[in-house]
Protein backbone atom coordinates (compact mmCIF):
# COMPACT_ATOMS: atom_id res chain seq x y z
CA UNK A 1 0.00 0.00 0.00
CA UNK A 2 3.02 2.23 -0.36
CA UNK A 3 1.60 3.62 -3.59
CA UNK A 4 -1.40 4.99 -1.64
CA UNK A 5 0.84 6.66 0.93
CA UNK A 6 3.04 8.09 -1.82
CA UNK A 7 0.09 9.38 -3.83
CA UNK A 8 -1.47 10.93 -0.74
CA UNK A 9 1.81 12.60 0.11
CA UNK A 10 2.21 13.98 -3.40
CA UNK A 11 -1.36 15.26 -3.63
CA UNK A 12 -1.13 17.05 -0.30
CA UNK A 13 2.36 18.40 -1.03
CA UNK A 14 1.60 19.90 -4.44
CA UNK A 15 -1.73 21.26 -3.23
CA UNK A 16 -3.98 19.26 -5.55
CA UNK A 17 -6.15 18.48 -2.55
CA UNK A 18 -6.62 20.18 0.80
CA UNK A 19 -7.36 17.03 2.76
CA UNK A 20 -7.59 13.35 2.04
CA UNK A 21 -10.44 11.38 3.56
CA UNK A 22 -9.14 7.86 3.91
CA UNK A 23 -8.58 5.01 6.30
CA UNK A 24 -5.98 4.46 8.99
CA UNK A 25 -5.18 1.45 11.09
CA UNK A 26 -7.71 0.88 13.84
CA UNK A 27 -7.23 0.15 17.51
CA UNK A 28 -6.70 -3.56 16.82
CA UNK A 29 -5.13 -5.27 13.80
CA UNK A 30 -8.55 -6.39 12.56
CA UNK A 31 -9.98 -2.89 12.34
CA UNK A 32 -9.58 0.21 10.23
CA UNK A 33 -11.00 3.63 10.95
CA UNK A 34 -11.84 6.71 8.94
CA UNK A 35 -8.93 9.11 8.92
CA UNK A 36 -8.49 12.65 7.61
CA UNK A 37 -4.99 13.37 6.33
CA UNK A 38 -4.25 17.10 6.35
CA UNK A 39 -0.45 17.21 5.94
CA UNK A 40 1.98 15.16 3.81
CA UNK A 41 3.18 13.48 7.03
CA UNK A 42 -0.38 12.37 7.81
CA UNK A 43 -0.46 10.55 4.47
CA UNK A 44 1.99 8.03 5.95
CA UNK A 45 -0.86 6.68 8.05
CA UNK A 46 -3.20 5.92 5.12
CA UNK A 47 -4.02 2.24 4.64
CA UNK A 48 -6.41 0.20 2.55
CA UNK A 49 -7.43 -3.37 3.29
CA UNK A 50 -10.49 -5.54 3.76
CA UNK A 51 -11.26 -3.84 7.06
CA UNK A 52 -11.96 -0.54 5.31
CA UNK A 53 -15.71 -0.98 5.50
CA UNK A 54 -16.94 2.58 6.05
CA UNK A 55 -18.45 4.54 3.20
CA UNK A 56 -16.42 7.74 3.42
CA UNK A 57 -18.62 9.60 0.93
CA UNK A 58 -20.75 10.53 3.94
CA UNK A 59 -18.09 13.10 4.88
CA UNK A 60 -18.27 14.92 1.54
CA UNK A 61 -21.52 16.71 2.35
CA UNK A 62 -20.39 17.76 5.84
CA UNK A 63 -19.90 21.50 6.20
CA UNK A 64 -16.26 21.00 7.23
CA UNK A 65 -15.44 19.81 3.71
CA UNK A 66 -18.23 20.87 1.36
CA UNK A 67 -17.20 23.86 -0.70
CA UNK A 68 -13.91 24.21 1.18
CA UNK A 69 -11.58 23.29 -1.67
CA UNK A 70 -10.74 20.01 -3.34
CA UNK A 71 -11.12 16.96 -1.15
CA UNK A 72 -9.28 13.76 -1.87
CA UNK A 73 -11.15 10.60 -1.01
CA UNK A 74 -10.08 6.98 -0.87
CA UNK A 75 -13.02 5.21 -2.42
CA UNK A 76 -14.11 1.66 -3.13
CA UNK A 77 -16.51 1.00 -5.99
CA UNK A 78 -19.58 1.34 -3.77
CA UNK A 79 -18.28 4.60 -2.33
CA UNK A 80 -17.77 5.93 -5.86
CA UNK A 81 -21.41 5.14 -6.57
CA UNK A 82 -22.33 7.34 -3.61
CA UNK A 83 -20.09 10.12 -4.89
CA UNK A 84 -21.64 9.91 -8.37
CA UNK A 85 -25.14 10.04 -6.89
CA UNK A 86 -24.19 13.07 -4.79
CA UNK A 87 -22.87 14.84 -7.88
CA UNK A 88 -26.06 13.93 -9.77
CA UNK A 89 -28.10 15.46 -6.96
CA UNK A 90 -25.98 18.63 -7.02
CA UNK A 91 -24.79 18.11 -3.48
CA UNK A 92 -21.11 18.27 -4.38
CA UNK A 93 -19.29 19.67 -7.36
CA UNK A 94 -17.46 17.20 -9.54
CA UNK A 95 -14.25 19.24 -9.59
CA UNK A 96 -14.26 19.47 -5.81
CA UNK A 97 -13.43 15.81 -5.34
CA UNK A 98 -10.32 13.92 -6.22
CA UNK A 99 -11.22 10.24 -6.24
CA UNK A 100 -8.48 7.81 -5.35
CA UNK A 101 -10.22 4.70 -6.67
CA UNK A 102 -9.30 1.42 -5.04
CA UNK A 103 -9.59 -1.92 -6.72
CA UNK A 104 -11.56 -3.66 -3.99
CA UNK A 105 -11.59 -7.36 -3.22
CA UNK A 106 -14.46 -7.06 -0.77
CA UNK A 107 -14.74 -5.84 2.77
CA UNK A 108 -15.60 -7.85 5.87
CA UNK A 109 -19.23 -7.93 6.94
CA UNK A 110 -18.49 -6.31 10.29
CA UNK A 111 -15.47 -5.14 12.23
CA UNK A 112 -14.06 -6.77 15.34
CA UNK A 113 -15.69 -10.13 14.74
CA UNK A 114 -13.97 -13.51 14.73
CA UNK A 115 -15.87 -14.39 11.57
CA UNK A 116 -14.15 -12.48 8.79
CA UNK A 117 -16.36 -13.51 5.90
CA UNK A 118 -17.00 -10.84 3.30
CA UNK A 119 -20.17 -8.78 3.27
CA UNK A 120 -22.95 -10.16 1.10
CA UNK A 121 -22.94 -6.98 -1.01
CA UNK A 122 -19.26 -7.61 -1.89
CA UNK A 123 -19.83 -11.13 -3.13
CA UNK A 124 -22.17 -9.88 -5.82
CA UNK A 125 -20.59 -6.49 -6.43
CA UNK A 126 -20.36 -5.14 -9.98
CA UNK A 127 -17.90 -2.35 -9.24
CA UNK A 128 -14.85 -4.08 -7.80
CA UNK A 129 -13.04 -1.64 -10.05
CA UNK A 130 -14.60 1.79 -9.49
CA UNK A 131 -16.38 3.26 -12.50
CA UNK A 132 -15.09 6.80 -11.87
CA UNK A 133 -11.71 7.80 -10.48
CA UNK A 134 -8.76 10.12 -10.95
CA UNK A 135 -6.18 7.55 -9.95
CA UNK A 136 -6.73 3.81 -9.66
CA UNK A 137 -4.72 1.81 -7.15
CA UNK A 138 -4.62 -1.75 -5.89
CA UNK A 139 -4.81 -5.16 -7.48
CA UNK A 140 -7.91 -7.14 -8.21
CA UNK A 141 -8.05 -10.78 -7.11
CA UNK A 142 -10.36 -13.54 -8.25
CA UNK A 143 -13.47 -13.55 -6.07
CA UNK A 144 -15.62 -16.55 -5.21
CA UNK A 145 -19.10 -16.50 -6.74
CA UNK A 146 -21.70 -17.26 -4.13
CA UNK A 147 -25.42 -17.41 -3.69
CA UNK A 148 -27.12 -14.08 -3.23
CA UNK A 149 -28.74 -14.51 0.18
CA UNK A 150 -30.31 -11.05 0.14
CA UNK A 151 -31.99 -11.65 -3.18
CA UNK A 152 -33.30 -15.01 -2.00
CA UNK A 153 -34.81 -13.37 1.08
CA UNK A 154 -36.42 -10.63 -1.01
CA UNK A 155 -37.98 -13.23 -3.29
CA UNK A 156 -39.21 -15.11 -0.25
CA UNK A 157 -40.81 -11.93 1.10
CA UNK A 158 -42.37 -11.14 -2.26
CA UNK A 159 -44.09 -14.50 -2.26
CA UNK A 160 -45.68 -13.92 1.17
CA UNK A 161 -49.21 -12.66 1.78
CA UNK A 162 -49.74 -9.11 3.04
CA UNK A 163 -50.37 -10.39 6.58
CA UNK A 164 -47.17 -12.44 6.61
CA UNK A 165 -45.16 -9.51 5.29
CA UNK A 166 -46.64 -7.27 7.95
CA UNK A 167 -45.81 -9.80 10.68
CA UNK A 168 -42.24 -10.08 9.41
CA UNK A 169 -41.66 -6.33 9.36
CA UNK A 170 -43.49 -5.77 12.63
CA UNK A 171 -41.07 -8.14 14.33
CA UNK A 172 -38.15 -6.32 12.73
CA UNK A 173 -39.30 -2.75 13.33
CA UNK A 174 -40.21 -3.57 16.91
CA UNK A 175 -36.49 -3.80 17.58
CA UNK A 176 -35.77 -0.28 16.32
CA UNK A 177 -34.54 2.02 19.09
CA UNK A 178 -34.69 5.19 16.97
CA UNK A 179 -31.00 5.89 17.36
CA UNK A 180 -30.91 7.09 13.73
CA UNK A 181 -27.53 5.43 13.19
CA UNK A 182 -28.86 4.32 9.78
CA UNK A 183 -29.42 7.96 8.88
CA UNK A 184 -26.13 9.26 10.21
CA UNK A 185 -24.05 6.69 8.40
CA UNK A 186 -25.87 7.05 5.09
CA UNK A 187 -24.12 9.18 2.45
CA UNK A 188 -27.50 9.92 0.85
CA UNK A 189 -29.12 11.21 4.08
CA UNK A 190 -27.67 14.69 3.88
CA UNK A 191 -30.71 16.82 4.77
CA UNK A 192 -29.70 19.48 7.25
CA UNK A 193 -32.99 18.97 8.98
CA UNK A 194 -34.43 15.49 8.78
CA UNK A 195 -38.20 15.04 8.70
CA UNK A 196 -37.83 12.81 11.75
CA UNK A 197 -36.54 15.78 13.74
CA UNK A 198 -39.44 18.06 12.91
CA UNK A 199 -41.76 18.65 15.83
CA UNK A 200 -44.37 21.04 14.41
CA UNK A 201 -46.07 18.96 13.18
CA UNK A 202 -44.41 15.80 14.38
CA UNK A 203 -44.71 13.53 11.37
CA UNK A 204 -42.61 10.76 12.80
CA UNK A 205 -42.99 9.97 16.46
CA UNK A 206 -39.72 10.14 18.30
CA UNK A 207 -40.33 7.44 20.88
CA UNK A 208 -39.03 4.00 20.02
CA UNK A 209 -42.46 2.46 19.76
CA UNK A 210 -43.48 0.13 16.95
CA UNK A 211 -46.02 2.65 15.63
CA UNK A 212 -43.52 5.42 15.02
CA UNK A 213 -40.91 2.85 14.03
CA UNK A 214 -43.10 1.85 11.13
CA UNK A 215 -43.34 5.43 9.88
CA UNK A 216 -39.64 6.02 10.34
CA UNK A 217 -38.52 2.90 8.52
CA UNK A 218 -41.08 3.26 5.74
CA UNK A 219 -40.21 6.91 5.14
CA UNK A 220 -36.47 6.29 5.38
CA UNK A 221 -36.75 3.52 2.80
CA UNK A 222 -38.92 5.71 0.60
CA UNK A 223 -36.54 8.64 0.74
CA UNK A 224 -33.78 6.31 -0.37
CA UNK A 225 -35.69 4.55 -3.10
CA UNK A 226 -33.94 5.05 -6.41
CA UNK A 227 -31.12 6.75 -4.51
CA UNK A 228 -29.66 4.00 -2.34
CA UNK A 229 -26.38 2.84 -3.81
CA UNK A 230 -26.31 -0.32 -1.71
CA UNK A 231 -23.25 0.18 0.45
CA UNK A 232 -25.11 -1.49 3.31
CA UNK A 233 -23.70 0.87 5.93
CA UNK A 234 -27.15 1.43 7.49
CA UNK A 235 -27.55 -2.24 8.23
CA UNK A 236 -24.01 -2.51 9.57
CA UNK A 237 -24.54 0.49 11.82
CA UNK A 238 -27.90 -0.73 13.10
CA UNK A 239 -27.57 -1.82 16.72
CA UNK A 240 -30.83 -3.75 16.47
CA UNK A 241 -29.81 -5.74 13.36
CA UNK A 242 -32.82 -4.71 11.31
CA UNK A 243 -32.28 -6.02 7.76
CA UNK A 244 -32.48 -2.60 6.13
CA UNK A 245 -30.72 -3.88 3.02
CA UNK A 246 -33.81 -5.93 2.24
CA UNK A 247 -35.84 -2.72 2.07
CA UNK A 248 -33.29 -0.64 0.20
CA UNK A 249 -32.37 -3.31 -2.27
CA UNK A 250 -36.00 -4.10 -3.01
CA UNK A 251 -36.63 -0.43 -3.76
CA UNK A 252 -33.54 -0.38 -5.98
CA UNK A 253 -34.96 -3.36 -7.85
CA UNK A 254 -38.30 -1.57 -8.26
CA UNK A 255 -36.52 1.54 -9.57
CA UNK A 256 -34.70 -0.58 -12.11
CA UNK A 257 -37.73 -2.59 -13.16
CA UNK A 258 -40.05 0.40 -13.49
CA UNK A 259 -37.69 3.08 -14.74
CA UNK A 260 -34.49 1.29 -15.76
CA UNK A 261 -32.67 3.39 -13.19
CA UNK A 262 -29.62 2.35 -11.18
CA UNK A 263 -28.43 4.80 -8.55
CA UNK A 264 -24.94 6.22 -8.79
CA UNK A 265 -23.92 4.60 -12.05
CA UNK A 266 -23.73 7.51 -14.51
CA UNK A 267 -22.95 11.17 -13.89
CA UNK A 268 -25.29 12.51 -16.56
CA UNK A 269 -28.32 10.42 -15.53
CA UNK A 270 -31.15 12.67 -14.35
CA UNK A 271 -32.19 11.76 -10.81
CA UNK A 272 -35.11 9.39 -10.51
CA UNK A 273 -37.60 11.13 -8.23
CA UNK A 274 -36.64 14.65 -9.30
CA UNK A 275 -37.85 13.91 -12.81
CA UNK A 276 -40.81 12.32 -14.52
CA UNK A 277 -41.87 10.82 -17.77
CA UNK A 278 -45.30 11.21 -19.32
CA UNK A 279 -45.30 7.48 -20.00
CA UNK A 280 -44.73 6.39 -16.40
CA UNK A 281 -46.83 3.47 -15.24
CA UNK A 282 -50.29 4.35 -13.97
CA UNK A 283 -52.22 1.09 -14.08
CA UNK A 284 -52.76 1.34 -10.31
CA UNK A 285 -54.51 4.71 -10.69
CA UNK A 286 -58.18 4.20 -11.36
Amino acid at each position, binding site marked *: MNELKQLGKDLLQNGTVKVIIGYAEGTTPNRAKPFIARTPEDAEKLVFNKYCVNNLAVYLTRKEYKGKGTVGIVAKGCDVKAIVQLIQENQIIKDDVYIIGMNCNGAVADLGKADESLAVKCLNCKVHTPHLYHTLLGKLEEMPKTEDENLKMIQK*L*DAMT*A*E*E*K*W*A*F*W*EAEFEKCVKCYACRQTCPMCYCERC*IADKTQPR*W*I*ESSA*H*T*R*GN*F*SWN*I*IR*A*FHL*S*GRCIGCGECERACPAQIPLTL*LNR*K*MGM*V*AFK*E*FGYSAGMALDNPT*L*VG*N*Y*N*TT*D*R*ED*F*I*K
Partner: protein
Amino acid sequence: MEEKTFEPKITAFVCNWCTYTGADLAGTSRLKYKPNIKMIRVPCTGRIDPVFITKAFEKGADGVLISGCHPGDCHYNTGNFHARRRWVLFTELLNYIGIDSSRLFFSWVSASEGKKFVDVVSNVIDTVKAKGPFQQYQKINKEFVLDE
Protein backbone atom coordinates in the same frame (compact mmCIF):
# COMPACT_ATOMS: atom_id res chain seq x y z
CA MET B 1 -80.02 -5.63 19.79
CA GLU B 2 -78.56 -5.43 16.35
CA GLU B 3 -74.85 -6.05 16.13
CA LYS B 4 -72.86 -2.97 15.22
CA THR B 5 -71.52 -3.24 11.70
CA PHE B 6 -68.05 -2.12 10.77
CA GLU B 7 -67.91 1.30 9.19
CA PRO B 8 -64.48 1.98 7.70
CA LYS B 9 -62.65 5.23 8.21
CA ILE B 10 -61.24 6.49 4.95
CA THR B 11 -58.91 9.44 4.65
CA ALA B 12 -58.82 11.08 1.24
CA PHE B 13 -56.12 13.47 0.09
CA VAL B 14 -57.48 15.36 -2.86
CA CYS B 15 -56.15 18.10 -5.05
CA ASN B 16 -57.79 21.50 -4.80
CA TRP B 17 -58.23 22.04 -8.53
CA CYS B 18 -59.74 18.82 -9.76
CA THR B 19 -60.97 16.23 -7.30
CA TYR B 20 -62.06 18.67 -4.60
CA THR B 21 -63.99 20.61 -7.20
CA GLY B 22 -65.30 17.31 -8.54
CA ALA B 23 -66.54 16.44 -5.06
CA ASP B 24 -68.14 19.85 -4.90
CA LEU B 25 -69.91 19.12 -8.16
CA ALA B 26 -71.13 15.83 -6.74
CA GLY B 27 -72.58 17.81 -3.84
CA THR B 28 -74.24 20.50 -5.93
CA SER B 29 -75.62 17.78 -8.24
CA ARG B 30 -77.19 16.18 -5.15
CA LEU B 31 -75.37 12.90 -5.74
CA LYS B 32 -75.18 10.72 -2.64
CA TYR B 33 -72.27 8.80 -1.20
CA LYS B 34 -71.51 7.30 2.18
CA PRO B 35 -70.10 9.58 4.86
CA ASN B 36 -67.14 7.31 5.77
CA ILE B 37 -64.72 9.50 3.95
CA LYS B 38 -62.77 12.40 5.46
CA MET B 39 -61.41 14.66 2.79
CA ILE B 40 -58.24 16.64 3.17
CA ARG B 41 -57.68 19.27 0.54
CA VAL B 42 -54.14 19.88 -0.66
CA PRO B 43 -53.00 22.32 -3.35
CA CYS B 44 -51.81 19.58 -5.70
CA THR B 45 -51.16 15.85 -5.66
CA GLY B 46 -47.50 16.83 -5.85
CA ARG B 47 -47.95 18.24 -2.35
CA ILE B 48 -48.82 14.83 -0.91
CA ASP B 49 -45.84 13.64 1.02
CA PRO B 50 -45.92 9.88 1.61
CA VAL B 51 -45.60 10.70 5.29
CA PHE B 52 -49.23 11.92 5.13
CA ILE B 53 -50.28 8.43 4.19
CA THR B 54 -48.36 6.70 6.97
CA LYS B 55 -49.75 9.28 9.40
CA ALA B 56 -53.30 8.57 8.29
CA PHE B 57 -52.85 4.86 8.91
CA GLU B 58 -51.15 5.61 12.18
CA LYS B 59 -54.12 7.69 13.30
CA GLY B 60 -56.54 4.87 12.63
CA ALA B 61 -57.54 5.09 8.96
CA ASP B 62 -58.65 1.78 7.47
CA GLY B 63 -57.99 3.02 3.97
CA VAL B 64 -56.49 5.98 2.17
CA LEU B 65 -57.64 7.48 -1.11
CA ILE B 66 -55.52 9.83 -3.14
CA SER B 67 -56.97 11.68 -6.05
CA GLY B 68 -56.02 14.52 -8.34
CA CYS B 69 -56.10 15.89 -11.86
CA HIS B 70 -55.71 13.70 -14.91
CA PRO B 71 -52.18 13.71 -16.39
CA GLY B 72 -51.73 16.82 -18.47
CA ASP B 73 -54.44 18.73 -16.59
CA CYS B 74 -52.39 19.76 -13.57
CA HIS B 75 -52.92 23.37 -12.52
CA TYR B 76 -49.18 23.55 -11.95
CA ASN B 77 -48.46 21.66 -15.21
CA THR B 78 -46.31 18.85 -13.84
CA GLY B 79 -47.31 18.26 -10.19
CA ASN B 80 -49.22 15.08 -10.85
CA PHE B 81 -46.48 13.65 -13.06
CA HIS B 82 -43.99 14.03 -10.24
CA ALA B 83 -46.52 12.57 -7.80
CA ARG B 84 -47.24 9.60 -10.04
CA ARG B 85 -43.61 8.57 -10.20
CA ARG B 86 -43.39 8.77 -6.41
CA TRP B 87 -46.52 6.65 -6.02
CA VAL B 88 -45.11 3.90 -8.20
CA LEU B 89 -42.25 3.59 -5.74
CA PHE B 90 -44.37 4.13 -2.64
CA THR B 91 -47.09 1.60 -3.50
CA GLU B 92 -44.41 -1.00 -4.17
CA LEU B 93 -42.81 -0.19 -0.83
CA LEU B 94 -46.07 -0.42 1.12
CA ASN B 95 -46.90 -3.62 -0.71
CA TYR B 96 -43.57 -5.04 0.39
CA ILE B 97 -44.25 -4.00 4.00
CA GLY B 98 -47.71 -5.57 3.92
CA ILE B 99 -50.12 -2.74 3.12
CA ASP B 100 -51.62 -3.83 -0.16
CA SER B 101 -53.86 -2.20 -2.74
CA SER B 102 -56.99 -2.99 -0.74
CA ARG B 103 -56.04 -0.20 1.68
CA LEU B 104 -54.47 2.39 -0.56
CA PHE B 105 -56.28 3.78 -3.59
CA PHE B 106 -55.37 6.22 -6.32
CA SER B 107 -57.55 7.89 -8.88
CA TRP B 108 -57.73 10.75 -11.33
CA VAL B 109 -60.97 12.69 -10.98
CA SER B 110 -61.42 15.96 -12.84
CA ALA B 111 -63.57 18.91 -11.79
CA SER B 112 -66.34 17.83 -14.14
CA GLU B 113 -66.45 14.20 -12.97
CA GLY B 114 -68.80 14.47 -10.01
CA LYS B 115 -70.32 11.11 -10.91
CA LYS B 116 -66.92 9.46 -11.18
CA PHE B 117 -66.02 10.81 -7.75
CA VAL B 118 -69.09 9.17 -6.24
CA ASP B 119 -68.23 5.89 -7.96
CA VAL B 120 -64.61 5.99 -6.80
CA VAL B 121 -65.55 6.78 -3.20
CA SER B 122 -68.24 4.10 -3.11
CA ASN B 123 -65.83 1.54 -4.52
CA VAL B 124 -63.18 2.47 -1.96
CA ILE B 125 -65.62 2.25 0.94
CA ASP B 126 -67.01 -1.09 -0.24
CA THR B 127 -63.55 -2.58 -0.77
CA VAL B 128 -62.28 -1.52 2.64
CA LYS B 129 -65.49 -2.59 4.31
CA ALA B 130 -65.11 -6.05 2.79
CA LYS B 131 -61.50 -6.17 3.88
CA GLY B 132 -62.36 -5.19 7.46
CA PRO B 133 -60.62 -2.89 9.92
CA PHE B 134 -56.87 -2.39 9.68
CA GLN B 135 -56.38 -4.47 12.78
CA GLN B 136 -52.65 -4.84 12.51
CA TYR B 137 -51.96 -1.13 12.74
CA GLN B 138 -54.71 -0.62 15.30
CA LYS B 139 -53.25 -3.33 17.50
CA ILE B 140 -50.00 -1.37 17.61
CA ASN B 141 -51.99 1.79 18.31
CA LYS B 142 -53.67 0.26 21.34
CA GLU B 143 -50.31 -0.54 22.87
CA PHE B 144 -49.37 3.06 22.50
CA VAL B 145 -50.45 5.63 25.04
CA LEU B 146 -49.66 9.11 23.93
CA ASP B 147 -50.57 12.22 25.89
CA GLU B 148 -52.36 14.16 23.24
